[in-house]
């Protein structure tokens, strides 16, 4: 069938699942006992397998299948997560990513079998289950299956697997219904239905099966549960227990009348513990098949290879003909879309207002006309903003691949290190997101390679053996700041100086008068690397200057702070024409201001007599800590209002450990605001970090609480 229309969805979802896998692999590497992670992986691998199968990517399907198998064993606690396993899994993940890349490129998964990874996975799984012959069970059946073609599929399972209904457990309560049914002389059947692998709407097919069955009988129990089937939480088969007056053939017919059903196996069902006389009858025909797969794994594999080769030939030209057009897509929060839809409907209302006005053609309506125009204007402005908001993507999409990278680096460099990330939810424009990945990667690699000392050295220095690298992203007024810091050795100023002298970038005289900061800035010059040994991780001298160029290309800036022995810190500031933050709207006098929510700790009502004076400065004693009060009205030169309130509304803001209380006149609730730059003509005080436009078109200034504290 033609699945090309699903290709984009497939690629999108695969990316998501791969990310999940990557994240969770990291988790189980740290906490091998974490069952949530195991389950998560199992689900992701399972979905991947299903999707790859639907799309006809057999190799991908096989690999994910093997991963899933392993996790099945872990889930059933037959084995534990071992470091070797995680390594294999990561290799498998890379292989899957390679498949995906290939699919992106050619709409075909390529020809790399990754046999070795599959084998390793299988042997791990086999060891766990204690099966003496690992290949026939999982290993051979899977490739045979993946070789494609209906023929192979027939061989895929043994009897026990096919008649899954025999394993349905019957509870005491259900037993009663059984007895009743027996008394009524009803036939009790166990049914296992197999859907075709190409079936896309599995839940719908299953539903049709149920419907067909319920017309002539009663479904007592199903595995998985009906709920799960409806939610499509099953693979290609489901089993059920069924009461009916009709014969076995009739039932089978009814099921097979539903399309996209591969096979329906119907057999008499006996409650466990009861007599099993009739049980033999059904399996007979399957018996033969059972022998086959066991006997011919080798053949199957060979055949599979041949089939694959043919597949390749057949698929290649086809793929070329239909070179996929994979568009660049953005996943959009449904709420943002709702806002857009609302705005569009408002736009239509505004238009209708204008239309009706023009049709009445009454000069009396002139003022109304202006009103409508203004309305239209504000709607379109909002529309513009909302559309721009849609372009905002959380930085998470770039940084979430870093933990994996650091893990690999850690192994490669033989240093123990950990990456700590915060603020992944900070939003940046899509274009910036696309560009910022490489520079960040560079900086992280630098930190890992040059920044952190060797483990022994760290221990000798009395530091934690494990090196720490931090990646913090946060909104800072009109900027988004991303900090990459490590607790490593820091940058040796003298070393940099000497290097620069050696390279002739500076003269002796210059070196003598240079400040430390100036020396550090030398690092950002082209072809400058202080790494004594050049590794393939970094240190080819194309590091920081490239980073700098890139960031400046985005309109940002980068600076470096360092302290010998304490570590270094690279601070990237990206200016935002359209940063969006949550803010508390406050009134001061008649003017409106916005205080970024991020810096607010609490809001307090303070009575006048609680305000004390310390060295002529107003302070309050808030639950034991003394907090200076800042009268925003005075600082901002707002004309004081007439009324005298009985108490002060104080917004407590914090910066690091320091806190301050901002006195405001009124609170206006929380709002998501779009930060607009004020421009560089006005030398406004540092208190103001930008402005925002309110719903009614008014402007509110954004207070930079950090500078007040």
């Amino acid at each position, binding site marked *: 069938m033609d699945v090309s229309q699903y290709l984009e969805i497939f690629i999108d979802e695969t990316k998501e699942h791969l990310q999940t896998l990557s994240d969770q692999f990291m988790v189980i590497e740290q906490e091998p006992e974490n069952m949530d992670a195991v389950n998560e992986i199992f689900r992701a691998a399972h979905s991947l397998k299903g999707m790859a199968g639907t799309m006809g990517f057999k190799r991908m399907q096989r690999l994910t299948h093997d991963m899933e198998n392993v996790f099945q064993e872990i889930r059933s606690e037959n084995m534990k997560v071992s470091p070797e396993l995680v390594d294999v899994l990561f290799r498998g993940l890379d292989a899957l990513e390679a498949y995906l890349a290939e699919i992106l490129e050619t709409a075909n998964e390529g020809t790399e079998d990754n046999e070795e990874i599959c084998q390793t996975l299988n042997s791990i799984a086999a060891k766990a289950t204690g099966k003496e012959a690992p290949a026939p069970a999982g290993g051979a059946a899977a490739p045979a299956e993946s070789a494609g073609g209906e023929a192979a599929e027939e061989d895929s399972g043994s009897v026990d697997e096919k008649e899954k209904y025999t394993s349905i457990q019957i509870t005491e309560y259900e037993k009663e219904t059984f007895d009743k049914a027996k008394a009524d002389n009803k036939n009790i059947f166990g049914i296992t239905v197999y859907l075709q692998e190409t079936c896309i709407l599995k839940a719908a097919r299953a539903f049709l099966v149920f419907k067909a069955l319920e017309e002539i009988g009663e479904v007592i129990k199903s595995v998985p549960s009906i709920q799960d089937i409806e939610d499509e939480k099953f693979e290609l088969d489901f089993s059920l227990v069924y009461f009916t007056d009709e014969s076995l053939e009739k039932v089978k017919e009814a099921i097979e009348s539903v399309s996209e059903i591969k096979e329906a196996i119907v057999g008499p069902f006996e409650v466990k513990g009861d007599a099993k006389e009739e049980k033999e009858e059904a399996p007979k025909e399957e018996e033969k098949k059972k022998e086959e797969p066991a006997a011919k794994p080798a053949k199957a594999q060979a055949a599979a290879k041949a089939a694959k080769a043919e597949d390749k030939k057949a698929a290649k030209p086809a793929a070329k003909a239909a070179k996929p057009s994979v568009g660049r897509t953005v996943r959009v929060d449904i709420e943002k879309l709702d806002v857009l839809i609302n705005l569009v409907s408002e736009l239509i209302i505004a238009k209708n207002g204008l239309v009706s006005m023009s049709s009445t053609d009454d000069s009396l309506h002139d003022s109304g006309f202006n009103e409508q125009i203004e309305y239209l204007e504000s709607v379109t*402005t909002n529309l513009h903003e909302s559309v721009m908001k849609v372009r905002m993507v959380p930085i998470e999409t770039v940084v979430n691949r870093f933990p994996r990278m650091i893990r690999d680096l850690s192994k490669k460099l033989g240093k123990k290190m950990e990456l700590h990330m915060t603020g992944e939810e900070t939003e940046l424009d899509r274009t910036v997101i696309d560009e910022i990945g490489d520079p960040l990667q560079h900086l992280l690699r630098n930190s890992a390679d040059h920044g952190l000392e060797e483990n022994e050295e760290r221990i000798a220095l009395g530091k934690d053996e494990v090196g720490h690298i931090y990646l913090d992203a946060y909104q800072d007024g009109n900027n988004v700041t991303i900090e990459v810091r490590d607790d490593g050795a820091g940058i040796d100023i003298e070393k940099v100086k000497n290097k620069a002298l050696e390279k002739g970038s500076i003269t002796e005289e210059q070196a003598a008068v240079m400040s430390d900061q100036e020396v550090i800035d030398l690092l950002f010059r082209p072809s400058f690397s202080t790494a004594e040994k050049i590794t393939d991780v970094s240190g080819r001298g194309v590091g920081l200057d490239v980073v700098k160029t890139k960031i400046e290309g985005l309109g940002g800036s980068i600076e470096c702070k360092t302290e010998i022995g304490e570590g270094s810190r690279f601070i990237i500031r990206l200016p935002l024409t359209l940063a969006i933050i949550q803010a508390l709207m406050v009134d001061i006098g008649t003017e409106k201001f916005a205080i970024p929510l991020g810096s607010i700790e609490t809001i307090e009502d303070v009575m006048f007599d609680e305000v004390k004076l310390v060295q002529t400065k107003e302070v309050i004693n808030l639950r034991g800590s003394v907090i200076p009060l800042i009268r925003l009205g005075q600082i901002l030169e707002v004309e004081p209002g007439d009324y005298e309130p009985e108490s002060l509304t104080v917004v407590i803001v914090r910066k690091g450990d320091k806190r301050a209380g901002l006195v405001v006149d009124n609170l206006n609730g929380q709002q998501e605001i779009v930060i607009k730059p004020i421009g560089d003509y*006005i030398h406004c005080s540092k208190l103001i970090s930008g402005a925002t436009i309110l719903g009614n078109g008014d402007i509110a*200034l954004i207070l930079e609480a950090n500078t007040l504290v």
Partner: protein
Amino acid sequence: MEDINDVQNLNVAGEGKQYIVVRLENEQYGIDIKYVDNIVRQQKITRIPSAQHYFKGVINLRGEVIPVMSLRLKFGLKPDEYTNATRIIIIKPEDQSAIGIIVDEVREVVTLSADQIEKPNTSDNNDVQIQYLSGIGKHGDGLVTLLNIRSVINEKESA
């Protein structure tokens, strides 16, 4: 050589330069039209604390926050009196962001050829305002002070 220059000047002059003539108190000023992005009515200006005294604040122009300065205050005249004729001229130099300037009235657009423009008397350096001028245009009976808009909007020294 002089002949050729004259011819070129004439050609340019023939097309002339267009200026928007605005009124401040009783004087007329001309603003080169190539800098003018838009002219909007007086609207609500949001004050910016501790800005330069001649900056009235910022306005919302179709979703953009644009700073607005008072030409009167910049030129050391009396504070603005907002009337129905008051306008904000949005200036957008190519390489800079937009800025609004408040004028008492927008009169007309005039085309001045080179021979209608007199260079300012640069020897008269006592006048602080001289740096803001690019010439004096003669239009009909009146004189129009042509503004050097870049130096007006870009502060060189605190006035």
